[in-house]
């Protein structure tokens, strides 16, 4: 049990999972604390161990070692008890195809021990809240991907879980449905819902999460607020230069001419520079490139993103 003063809703200690037959652990000695009321993101590429981590916290994956406490209950030793406080939205559509939209909610309430009247009332109210009321009697086959996702979210919070786990919640959704889902999650969170989500979309982690853990190869590489993570890059601007010719020579010329460049690397058809205190950086970069005999085809200035953070930490891009 957590101490009464603690507001952590998830706590793991040395949580590890090695799947049978695998050489390397999928999750490697994870120490993680998620506070009540947070939207916490696990960000990383496919195979980073995010889904395995969420699986262990939701009792579906049995850890090889370590401990995980969710809502004050050890999920390894008391999985059935822990499930009372857990809501899960999985990547795939797991709606009950034999029940209609309303019944999917109603029976979830009954499953979690609510009476018939309370389940009925909550189902009605959630359908209103999630703008699915006019689909109440429809087959779940009739729902679009975005609507099915909304129904799954409604179902997952029906029993007022201490934590809502969402595995890649917007994977496969169109941009409009994704924005709508983000709004829903923000609203739920504003009402006190703690949410842990896994994602490989950096915008999702950036826009939605209070804190983000960047994972790769089963380990947490960095954990902070999105702003804090971006500050850790040590640059306030990212300059992308596209030019013909030998990029290594261009990189050497630019870093010699521009003392405020903290990092420079080759990308598709050009170079990416991390720059600190970038006063008039575009003009100076073009001048330096041209002085070295390069024709600049294109140049752009952006702010660091979580993608930049990930590349900084791992040397590879987040997207495959």
């Amino acid at each position, binding site marked *: 049990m957590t101490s009464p003063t603690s507001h952590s*809703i998830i706590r793991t200690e040395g949580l590890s999972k090695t*799947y049978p037959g695998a050489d390397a652990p999928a999750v490697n000695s994870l120490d993680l604390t998620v506070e*009540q*009321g947070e939207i916490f993101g696990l960000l990383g590429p496919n195979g980073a161990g995010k889904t395995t981590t969420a*699986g262990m916290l*939701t*009792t*579906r*994956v*049995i850890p090889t070692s370590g401990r995980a406490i969710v*809502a*004050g*209950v050890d999920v390894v030793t*008391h*999985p*059935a*008890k*822990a*499930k*009372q*406080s*857990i809501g*899960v939205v*999985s990547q*795939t*559509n*797991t*709606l*009950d*195809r*034999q*029940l209609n939209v309303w*019944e999917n909610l109603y*029976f979830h309430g*009954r*499953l*979690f*021990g609510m009476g018939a009247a309370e389940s009925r009332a*909550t189902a009605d*109210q*959630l359908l209103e*809240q999630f703008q699915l009321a006019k689909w109440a009697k429809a087959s779940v086959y009739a729902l679009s991907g975005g609507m099915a996702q909304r129904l799954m979210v409604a*179902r997952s*919070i029906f*029993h*007022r*879980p*201490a934590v809502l786990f969402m595995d890649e919640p917007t994977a496969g959704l169109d941009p409009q449905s994704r924005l709508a889902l983000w709004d829903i999650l923000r609203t*739920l969170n504003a*009402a*006190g*819902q703690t949410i842990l989500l896994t994602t490989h979309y950096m915008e999702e982690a950036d826009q939605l999460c209070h804190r983000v853990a960047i994972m790769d190869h089963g380990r947490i590489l960095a954990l902070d607020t999105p702003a804090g993570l971006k500050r850790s890059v040590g640059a306030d601007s990212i300059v992308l230069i596209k030019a013909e010719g030998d990029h290594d020579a261009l990189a050497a010329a630019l870093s010699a001419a521009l003392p405020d460049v903290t990092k420079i690397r080759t990308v598709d058809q050009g170079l990416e520079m991390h720059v600190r205190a970038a006063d008039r950086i575009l003009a100076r970069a073009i001048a330096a490139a041209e002085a070295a005999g390069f024709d600049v085809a294109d140049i752009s200035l952006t702010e660091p993103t979580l993608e930049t953070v990930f590349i900084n930490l791992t040397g590879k891009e987040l997207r495959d």
Partner: protein
Amino acid sequence: MSTTDTITLHPSRSTFAASRTALGALLLRDVVVLRKNLGEFVVRTLIQPFLLCFVFLFVFPKIGQSVGGGTHAAASSVNFATILVAGVVGISIMFQGVQSVALQMSQEFGFTREIEDRVQAPCPIWLVALSKVLGGCLQGLISAAIVLPIASVVHAKGVEADLSLRWLLILTLVPLSCLAMSSLGLVLGTSFEPRNIGLMFGFVVLPITFLGGTYYQWTRLAPVKVGGFHWLQTLVLINPLIYVNEGMRAAFTSAPHMHLYIVYPVLLGFCAVFLSIGLRNFRRRVLS
């Protein structure tokens, strides 16, 4: 709704209490789905018994075709309708186990992924599997009840089944058979991927059906032998349907049947074996 004061920050109920209501809800859901699909369920349940009775008890007598060795049948005091009626109840119970548990579960694992949500119910996961078996049992019981009258209706003149109901046996053997066959359904449903369902029918369901004593009495298989060895009568003893059908014969007719002190313990044994394999398979499929 989800304001901080209504969110349950710690589990509020004992696991036992939560599991009990969860099991109730899982079964309630099955009953509601069954009620929705009642027409389909009845047709699905009745079509096979109807066809069996129609061909064997109506068409065959009409065209004067005896079923297999007419001499033995004539020598026996039990007519074929009586043999078949018990077998029809037994085979219906078995198909209910395959259809309502195995096919359903194989789909939920492989195609709809519904099981992923169901196992998040606030109870041990074996209870989720057990609820499927109990739901299958219920459907088996209903099918047994609606199938029996068929044989007394669908037949040619003079080919009536000779029923003699023994209620104590009916009330114990029918539920026991339903449990054994639903547990078999759990084993099959957790062993076969949806794409291999054809294999399941070919290699498991058909042999069980044809070598399960539906169309003949186990007690009369003795003449099939090599040397002095009654190989068929021995071999089919691994078939759980034999015990179901012989049990139905004992419960519904006065035809000779396998001793009940074999039928009861073996059916109980099959329940135990199938449940333990099925629950273990289920756990393996659900957890990693």
